[in-house]
């Protein structure tokens, strides 16, 4: 009898605990806690420095009345959260793709696509590498295509003029938009790449790897190189019209081909109806020209920001890219696409 009593007591205790835990969030909502002004942003690590700068300045301007959080999940990871309605804005270093568009559609999430800056991908080698100053897209394709896996392991296999030195490859992780874009631009198919390279989301790891290995080669965002120009050797890329090194100028005028690309933010249309989100996005586009340059990215022409502002004001949803990545898009092409919308 006593034993049963004890068990009932335990049961009541457990039930009460479970009830309390499951109802806590509901409690939070009823007390009005959830209505606080929080803007949630997640996504690409490439776009992160820009969004972080805007978030910092915005919170300062609003004197802390609006809270902004920025996470780094990669472009793909960011869109996953975005399509579940967990974030208000998604940072993306490539346009949204078909699969992600479908996921948003299914969840009833409409989005406004806004280009915020230009970025170049820099191909880097070890400073002791004295045989390479430029490479053609064909060379890079030979190195990175899936068929090269386990086969192309020495420099002289790519070009007989180069020495017999082991080729060690470094690149960003497969969840990043940078990886998606590089494979699309070089190999011709998004995400098609050999698998035997050192992948890291942390650019410092890539730099360490390339810097300590005479036969190292890797790629990452131009902004990172701009912060550390003396650690590694930059390779000029020959996209068919002679070798060009990435720089503020060559990325902007489109001669650095095909490794420059626009980067974006995607705003949830429903969130954009909240005054604090609306204000944040307007603040973003207005201050982008200065802030983008400050964090070593390449700003779009003023006209592009104007177009983006207009599009946001009119709440035009959808993407201008039709769910496919476009390669080597010049700023002019982008403007034309934007104007059509």
């Amino acid at each position, binding site marked *: 009898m006593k034993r049963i009593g004890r068990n009932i007591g335990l049961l009541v205790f457990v039930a009460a605990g479970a009830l309390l835990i499951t109802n*806590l*969030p509901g409690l939070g909502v009823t007390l009005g806690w959830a209505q606080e002004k929080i803007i949630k942003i997640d996504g690409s690590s490439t776009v*992160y420095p820009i*969004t972080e700068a805007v978030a*910092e300045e915005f919170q300062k301007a609003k004197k802390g009345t609006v809270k*902004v959080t*920025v*996470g780094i999940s990669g472009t793909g990871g960011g869109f996953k959260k975005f399509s579940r309605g967990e974030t208000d804005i998604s940072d993306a270093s490539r346009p949204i793709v078909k699969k992600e568009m479908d996921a948003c559609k299914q969840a009833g999430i409409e989005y406004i696509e806004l280009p915020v800056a230009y970025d170049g991908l820099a191909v880097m080698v070890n400073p002791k590498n004295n045989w390479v100053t430029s490479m053609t897209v064909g060379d890079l394709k030979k190195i990175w295509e899936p068929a090269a896996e386990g086969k192309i392991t020495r420099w002289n296999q790519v070009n007989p003029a180069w020495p017999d030195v082991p080729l060690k490859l470094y690149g960003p992780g497969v969840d990043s938009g940078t990886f998606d874009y590089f494979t699309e631009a070089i190999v011709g198919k998004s995400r098609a790449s050999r698998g035997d390279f050192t992948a890291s989301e942390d*650019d410092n790891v890539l730099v360490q790897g390339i810097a300590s290995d005479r036969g190292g080669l890797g790629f990452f965002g131009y902004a990172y190189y701009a912060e550390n120009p003396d650690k590694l050797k930059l390779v000029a890329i020959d996209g068919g019209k002679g070798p060009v090194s990435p720089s503020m100028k060559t990325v902007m005028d489109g001669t650095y081909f095909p490794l420059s690309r626009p980067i974006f933010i995607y705003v949830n249309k429903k969130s954009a109806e909240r005054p604090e989100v609306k204000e944040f996005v307007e603040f973003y586009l207005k201050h982008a020209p200065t802030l983008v340059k400050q964090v070593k990215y390449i700003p779009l022409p003023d006209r592009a920001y104007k177009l983006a502002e207009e599009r946001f004001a009119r709440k035009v949803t959808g993407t201008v890219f039709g769910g496919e990545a476009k390669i080597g898009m010049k700023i002019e092409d982008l403007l034309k696409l934007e104007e059509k919308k």
Partner: protein
Amino acid sequence: MASDKNTQEIRRRISHNKFRDHLFWVIGLFSTLIGFVVLFTLIIDLFVDGFPRLSWSFLTSYPSRFPEKAGILSAWVGTTLVMIVTAAAAVPLGIAAGIYLEEYGKKNWLTHVIEINMNNLAGIPSIIYGLLALGLFVYFLKLGESILTGGLTLGLLILPMVVISTRESIKAIPNSIREASYALGATKWQTVKDHILPYSMGGILTGMIIGLSRAIGETAPIITVGALTFVAFLPSSPMTNTFPFLSFKWLFDPFTVMPIQMFNWVSRPQKEFHLNAAAAGIILLLMTLVMNALAIYLRYKFRKRIKW
């Protein structure tokens, strides 16, 4: 003659044993030194890099894109609050479970299975706890990507450690104490409350601190449940100036913690941010030391009260 040979033999053996004794002394010292030197080098390195960055404003500023302006205010507040939730979740549960298993539970196959599981749980990689917590707390219970979720996740992680240390220190209490208590007519609960718990408190506290010290440095499960990289605000205050003056709203606020802030800084291109990471490392080390010091002090206090 024979006895002389015998003495020689004994002398030889003694010197042989002495040599071995000495040998082990050297091996032992060497092993100790390796651990010590590695730790010491790490700490020195951390201090050399990070010490110049330590200042009051480093502790009271939010993260920033300018390394010299950046601080760890949101990170250390986040870590402290998450630790409070972790301790509040894991310690009562862990102690209660430990007492039940040791004092109340019958020694049958069920407790045996629980026991084996408990020991295994302590060795599970933390990312697994992160995934479990993502499914349970974030998606199923809808607690959101909040301090509460982070704290409960780390609470799960250290629960086995608290249970195991509770059981070990209860086991160390001589049975005569229990028998004496029963002989005076005390019930089981009275025995536990007035004797078992106070006597084992030192060991329990040690287990708790070891657990919390592990939890404070965890990054993987916290990232999985959605701690964020850039958080430049504090959670809402637990005190309000309207009735009832206490608010638990902070439990549901987004947060960041020290290891994530460090990770973010380390992965940045600018060297100045790496120094910031080292400085944050020093603070994290200090936080762990303060926790340990507190545990040693409490243990000392509890030991003093034991009179047998």
